[in-house]
């Protein structure tokens, strides 16, 4: 296959990727878009096999079967609640691949000194550095979300300075390589330091902020892939990598905006650490908590005109989304208008809750975004909060001392009555008390979210 034909076919792949992203603008076309993108990927792989001088097919094919097999099995088996860490894992391996490629390229090219153009060296260094950070950072994000290591920020004195020095040394080695220090060990050292930096960079970030980190690392991998494209003089890598780099950066910024925090604050603020102190001081709050039985709540719900369900990660963990939908259907059958209020960062990723509810066959037309639903709370008879916490905390509006002050929240406290389904009075992921629970119109229904919802279903049916 000629070089020109190869490049033209790669261009077709690029177009399929752009279409895949374009089709994501509506839930109706999104799945088709993803399939188009996958076809483009298959085309690119086929074209690459057909390149002149392609050898070692016996090495490549088993590698593909091994990696692809692992990817397929892991992706099929993972539960929808564990999706964020799976994305982190697949993102990390992509970054790792980019770093390995730059290592092999460097190894292959240096026997003839002066062979490397400075721009190729820059590309090799960037792809090694960014790819390695993305790999180890994603693995830590995976471990945190999978709860292999503790989700709370891990901090120690001199952390920021230490990390900065580490990154500085790695960059200095990179600059030296570009300046002509073409020794393999230099690049190996650079990769080692970058891997370590990735670990130390993500460790101090709290579990609740992991989605932002994953999005950022996703952008990183895109950039590493684009740099790999410069190394190999390959357009499909440059364009696809940069598409991901740009879109990932944009998405990261939007997520930061949804939480009303700068990305710098997310990355270096060691959130949750601060709030642990706030939690201990705020725990002395005076209000009393009222708890109710499932039967009481069932009556409130069944005779309401309008109910808004506020789902959170607690619902997802209990795998209660199917039962929640069943409860909503029962209420609708009795003439109650039911909507779902989805906070932009409900769950563990933006839009994560939408995925979980879609899994339970909730039509997406019933899922209302925060800005759309907030004006409706004052006319709502019952707001049913299921396993959501920080996104409903009025302190974000009222208490400037609260660590979440300024974060846009769902105005649940404005509803006429509030029912909170919660396991216990433990504070939420961010580790702060929620004043909502002591409001006079709030009742608590304690217990596992799934059990509570099942009890509610039984109680509504019995009415």
């Amino acid at each position, binding site marked *: 296959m000629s070089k020109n034909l190869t490049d033209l076919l790669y261009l077709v792949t690029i177009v399929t990727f752009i279409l895949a*992203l*374009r089709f*994501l*603008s509506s*839930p109706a076309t*999104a*799945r088709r878009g993803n399939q188009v993108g*996958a076809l483009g*990927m298959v085309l690119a792989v086929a074209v690459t096999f057909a390149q002149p*001088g392609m*050898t070692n097919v016996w090495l*490549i094919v088993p*590698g*593909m*079967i091994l990696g*692809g097999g*692992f*990817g397929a099995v892991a992706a099929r088996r*993972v*539960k*929808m609640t564990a*999706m964020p860490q799976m*994305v982190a*894992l*697949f993102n990390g*391996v*992509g970054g*790792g*691949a980019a770093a*390995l*490629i730059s290592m*092999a390229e460097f*190894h292959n090219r240096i026997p003839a000194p002066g062979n490397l*153009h400075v721009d190729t060296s820059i590309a090799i260094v960037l792809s090694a550095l960014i790819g390695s950070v993305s790999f180890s950072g994603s693995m830590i994000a995976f471990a945190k979300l999978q709860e292999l290591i503790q989700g709370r920020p891990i901090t120690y004195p001199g952390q920021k300075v230490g990390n900065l020095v580490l990154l500085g040394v790695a960059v200095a080695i990179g600059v030296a390589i570009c300046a002509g220090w073409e020794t393999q060990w230099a690049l190996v050292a650079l990769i080692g330091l970058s891997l370590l930096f990735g670990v130390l960079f993500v460790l101090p970030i709290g579990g609740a902020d992991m989605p932002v980190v994953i999005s950022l690392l*996703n952008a990183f*991998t*895109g950039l590493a*892939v684009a740099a790999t494209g410069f190394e*190999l003089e390959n357009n499909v*890598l*440059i*364009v*696809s990598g*940069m*598409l*991901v*780099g*740009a*879109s*990932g950066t944009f998405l990261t910024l939007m997520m930061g905006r949804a939480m009303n925090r700068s990305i710098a604050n997310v990355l270096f603020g060691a959130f949750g650490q601060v709030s642990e102190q706030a939690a201990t001081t705020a725990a002395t709050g005076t209000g009393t908590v009222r708890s109710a039985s499932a039967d009481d709540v069932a009556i409130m719900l069944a005779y309401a005109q309008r109910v808004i369900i506020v789902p959170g990660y607690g619902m997802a963990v209990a795998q209660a989304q*199917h039962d929640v939908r*069943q409860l909503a259907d029962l209420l609708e059958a009795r003439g109650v208008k039911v909507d779902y209020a989805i906070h932009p960062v409900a769950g563990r*990723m*933006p*839009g994560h809750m939408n*995925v979980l509810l879609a*899994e339970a*066959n909730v039509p*997406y*037309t019933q899922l209302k975004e925060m800005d759309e639903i907030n004006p409706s709370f004052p006319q709502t008879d019952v707001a049913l909060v299921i396993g959501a916490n920080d996104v409903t905390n009025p302190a974000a509006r009222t208490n400037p001392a609260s660590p979440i002050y300024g974060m846009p929240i769902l105005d649940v406290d404005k509803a006429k009555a509030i029912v909170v389904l919660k396991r216990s009075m433990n504070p939420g992921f961010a580790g702060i008390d929620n004043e909502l629970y002591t409001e006079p119109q709030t009742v608590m229904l304690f217990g596992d979210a799934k059990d509570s919802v099942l009890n509610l279903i039984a109680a509504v049916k019995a009415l």
Partner: protein
Amino acid sequence: MNHGTLLVFEVTILVLAIFLGFEVISKVPTLLHTPLMSGTNAIHGIVIVGAMLVAGTPHADTATKVIGFAAVVLASANVVGGFVVTDRMLEMFKKREPPKPASDDSDPTGPA
């Protein structure tokens, strides 16, 4: 094409890709941000082309083969896993459908 011209050309398409990335993403609703993250994750699996080119270098020495093989394994996991996960998420987004028997609701793991 000499090296300099090629580089300028590559930088040109790089910059255009940045603007395209911003443009395309700004139209994606919050509802689909998780699949978006996952979908772009699958797209950067294109690094598999680079991994194949490195592993398939003619007259490669052992070190190149080993590193290339590892890169192919990682990149394949990225590609296949990325697209499959995204597909699983997206297949669940549907409009209200005709009522089905309630037995469908008892499967806690959802469609596998």
